[in-house]
């Protein structure tokens, strides 16, 4: 079986671009706090979602709807409606993280396929099988803290499909378990669907030196001519003890292109590309690249050389936790 390429779409235009570029599957979200990329100007209203699903289905592609924030107490109805509307729009699956919402979806929408979001941070076979047995979850998106041998070990024991991130932004913290953003800004991935939100970012350039702040905290200071990474908290430059630098993670982005054959051997079903906040031209290029790679793998041709460096944050790439030395 050819590995499934799962692509991000922040807008209807990006969805169309991804499908045309060869995406097997596109994931997207509604334009509210129910999804973990709740950024200004992004995402789908209900009629855009219906049209997007129809566009994808007409071309043999699937659409997954991410409803992967944690419903706010007192306002669960917003999230329940999102699940119902995803089903009504014809979505092929919903991607969920919250226990209460998984319970709700499995009881009220049993025919709607459920995937477990990376936000649930299910990092071993026992908890994956627990989610499968309890809520009928059919696929689990694995957290970005696992190495390839660990992924292989999980797949040897897991009763359901797994999907792993291969390209784009890299969370160094276990996803869905991080409150760094709300500590500095009041807005968090879990509650608001945003991390290091643009509304709290300030850039200030003085004689070529660019300061990037988040919630008033200085995250990056770069000299003239140096790249300016977005001030994502965990990739900032800090000091501790006698040391200073990128103490948590360098401003790199994930590229596991070269690990695709190993990930296939490890039993992974689907390869996920991060970046619902990126442009349609980015999405199209990345999709084309990865589709060519999995097609080559399937046809036992050599893997095409990567061309994606310019598109990544800070222009540098890492294979992240997939190589155990990352830790």
């Amino acid at each position: 079986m050819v590995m499934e390429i799962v692509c991000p779409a922040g807008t209807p235009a990006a969805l169309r671009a991804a499908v045309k570029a060869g995406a097997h599957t596109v994931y997207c979200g509604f334009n509210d706090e129910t999804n973990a990329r709740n950024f200004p100007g992004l995402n789908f209203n209900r009629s855009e979602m219906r049209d997007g699903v129809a566009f994808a289905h007409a071309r043999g592609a699937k659409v997954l709807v991410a409803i992967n924030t944690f419903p706010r107490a007192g306002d669960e109805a917003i999230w329940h409606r999102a699940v119902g509307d995803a089903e009504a729009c014809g979505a092929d699956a919903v991607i969920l993280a919250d226990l209460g919402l998984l319970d709700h979806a499995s009881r009220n929408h049993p025919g709607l396929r459920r995937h477990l979001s990376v936000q649930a941070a299910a990092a071993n076979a026992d908890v994956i099988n627990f989610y499968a047995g309890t809520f009928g979850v059919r696929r689990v998106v694995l957290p970005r803290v696992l190495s390839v041998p660990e992924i292989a070990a999980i797949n040897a024991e897991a009763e359901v499909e797994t999907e792993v991130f291969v390209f784009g932004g890299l969370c160094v913290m276990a996803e869905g378990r991080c409150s760094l953003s709300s500590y500095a800004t009041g807005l968090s991935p879990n509650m608001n669907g945003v991390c290091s939100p643009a509304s709290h970012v300030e850039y200030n350039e003085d004689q070529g030196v660019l300061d990037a702040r988040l919630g008033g905290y200085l995250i990056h200071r770069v000299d003239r001519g140096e790249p300016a990474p977005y001030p994502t908290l965990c990739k900032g430059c800090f000091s501790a003890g006698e040391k200073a630098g990128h103490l948590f993670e360098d401003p790199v982005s994930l590229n596991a292109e070269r690990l695709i054959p190993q990930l296939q051997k490890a039993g992974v079903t689907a390869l996920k590309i991060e970046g619902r906040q990126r442009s349609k031209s980015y999405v199209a290029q990345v999709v084309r690249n990865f589709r060519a790679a999995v097609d080559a793998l399937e046809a036992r041709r050599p893997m095409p050389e990567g061309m994606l460096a310019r598109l990544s944050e800070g222009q540098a790439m890492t294979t992240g936790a997939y190589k155990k030395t990352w830790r």
Partner: protein
Amino acid sequence: MELTVGSNQFFWPAETWSGFYDDLTRSPVDRVVIGELVCSKRLSFYQDRIPEAISKLVEAGKEVALTSLALVTLKRERKLTAELAEMGVTVEINDLTALAYLLEGSDFSVGPLVNVYNEGTITWLASRGARRVCLPPELPIGSVETLAKAATDLGIAIEVWGHGRLPLAISGRCYHARLHGRSKDNCQFACEEDPDGLDVLTVEGRPFMAMNGVQTLSDSYACIDHQIELLRSAGVSALRLSPQSKGFVQLCTLYRQRIDRTLSEGELANAVLSFNPGVHLSDGFLTGACGAEWSGTSNS
């Protein structure tokens, strides 16, 4: 209102560890959560002391629960987590993996690192046997009020993070090891040098976070001096105090006095600051615009 001592987040020498729990037998707290939350590698240094500490605490009239790890990945960690269920003590789950090993219907507690954000989740947890939930520290007061109300109907006791550096993130990567240029597998237990975490500052020198092995904490110490009445009327039944290396029993006493109204609002924070010089306090997650905010007037 009761006081619960949360699981120790830091790595202390075994003697210090034992001394800490001995002292707690003489402190005015109701409940103690014991065991390793952050890193399974630390456990072998003090694991054999846990049964004795538990029995001393129980003898002193404290309720005891045993925490699970916050992030269960390795085979060894899965085995450790499965064994928790067989210890004969209430398990506090801090990774859902622990729930997979509990017999359906057996009672358990839910720790602050499980995502309990809404009524649906707490209802589902109650149906699985949850009897006590410490809410995630990032929840605002509105959510706490709604959840405490739902919990009362479900027979669940609600705790809120009351004091100590806030657990903000957990990772597969060890930052202490990375800082010392070591791999996680060869960390040489660098985190032991920082019994309350290692301060992380911005490049301008502004305190921001604290590093604790695979865990990232806030620089500031949560202190809910100014929200105790609010939490009490919301129906919150216990405050969670997170262990620190210095003056912890004294700290427990101060919180006890504040709950019993022998200390008034503001006095608790002043007292905490007076014997923790250089420490910053925060209560922004509950009532502020962001977690780092502090609603009191005093701060160093």
